[in-house]
């Protein structure tokens, strides 16, 4: 009996093996900044990316190689990431819109998009490239038209690609 038990134990140990399985998932949605935005300063209390006011609209590009698999979520800024000390309130406005598409199937992205707070969400239903432009305007003084203190101002647009 002892002998049989030992034999079983040896056989059990010899058959045990850990077989690793590895896999790599490559994203089918890539985000790239095509144009970095610039704030123009048309008056003392306004910073805006509007080209007519000396600003540059940031452009973000989504490259999608799998249709109906991702959502583009883009949020325009509501605060400065870098600025001088501000004692008064800043009022933020902005927008996100499709600038260009690489496929006719993307033509209705703007129409079908869902907008909430400062965020716009797009269903990426076609493969190809979509360019989004983001507008951002900051007004200082809470409607009192107070001049921005001198210095450098930076803000951030958040662009995400979320699997559906």
């Amino acid at each position, binding site marked *: 009996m002892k002998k049989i038990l030992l034999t079983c134990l040896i056989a059990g140990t010899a058959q045990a093996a850990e077989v690793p399985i590895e896999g790599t998932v490559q994203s089918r949605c890539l985000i790239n900044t095509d144009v970095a935005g610039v704030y123009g300063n048309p008056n003392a209390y306004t910073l805006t990316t509007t080209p007519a006011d000396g600003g540059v609209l940031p452009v973000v590009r989504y490259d999608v190689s799998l249709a109906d698999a991702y959502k583009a979520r883009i949020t325009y800024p509501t605060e400065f990431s870098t600025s001088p000390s501000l004692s008064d309130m800043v009022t933020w406005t902005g927008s996100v819109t499709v600038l260009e598409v690489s496929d006719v199937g993307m033509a*209705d992205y703007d129409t079908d998009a869902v907008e909430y707070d400062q965020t716009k969400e797009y269903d990426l239903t076609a493969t190809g*490239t979509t360019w989004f432009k983001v507008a951002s305007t900051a007004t200082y003084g809470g409607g009192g038209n107070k001049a921005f203190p001198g210095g450098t101002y930076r803000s951030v647009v958040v662009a995400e690609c979320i699997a559906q």
Partner: protein
Amino acid sequence: MAVYSAACFSSDPIYGYSNNAAAGGGSWSMSESVLGVAPVPGLDISGVLYRYTAVKERPDDFTVTIQNTNAVDGGYVFRETDDWSGRTGQTIVKQIPVGYVPIRFWGDGEIVTTGVGSVEDPAVVYTYRYIEPEPELPDLPTYTYNALEDPAVIAATEATERPETDEDEAKKDDEDEEKKDMEKALAALQSGLEMAKGQDGLLAAMNPVTMTQYYAATIPGGAYQETVMLDGGQIKDNKRAFRSMANDRLHNQMVEEQWR
């Protein structure tokens, strides 16, 4: 064997892109002013990149086609249609690879629309590759050389016979002698190898026997008892040794004196 005359020719390809073909309107020819380079042999179109804004109401039917006629075979060498029917007008950017199609196939290009709508700010750009074509060489006669028909080769390879001379006989004797020497050397080598094999066998057979004999040997008597006895019970000092030690000490002192 055939002998050909051929020139070695190589040229690095030049890549580039054309001007906006649609800058002057909805149709254009593939001329030097459009392409930016002369439409010569060696120029191949590798892709078409276009961009325009479709202006229309969403419910309307509207299609936009960018195309180039095929100047050689008829029909179209390139044709891409965007159907905007039921869709919102938008700015579209497309890049379409076409392989490397020689410029001679590329006829006039145009933007054609159907339905209700318009195209704004169109841009059509062709990407190209240019490889300088190989210069045409005149046809040279080929000459085929057959060695088996060459009279000189035939004469040189013909069998010849001549009477044996004393030198030939002496040479033959030398060759026979060399052959015998070689046979002797081979026989000696073979014998040496056989002997080596025999010696190995003998050593292998002898060693265990010899060692066993040593291990098995017994000393007669069983034990050797101490036989040295001290005569008289006293040991006298060795005066000669004392003198020698005194001399050694003096010698050492003298040597050390030299280094002080």
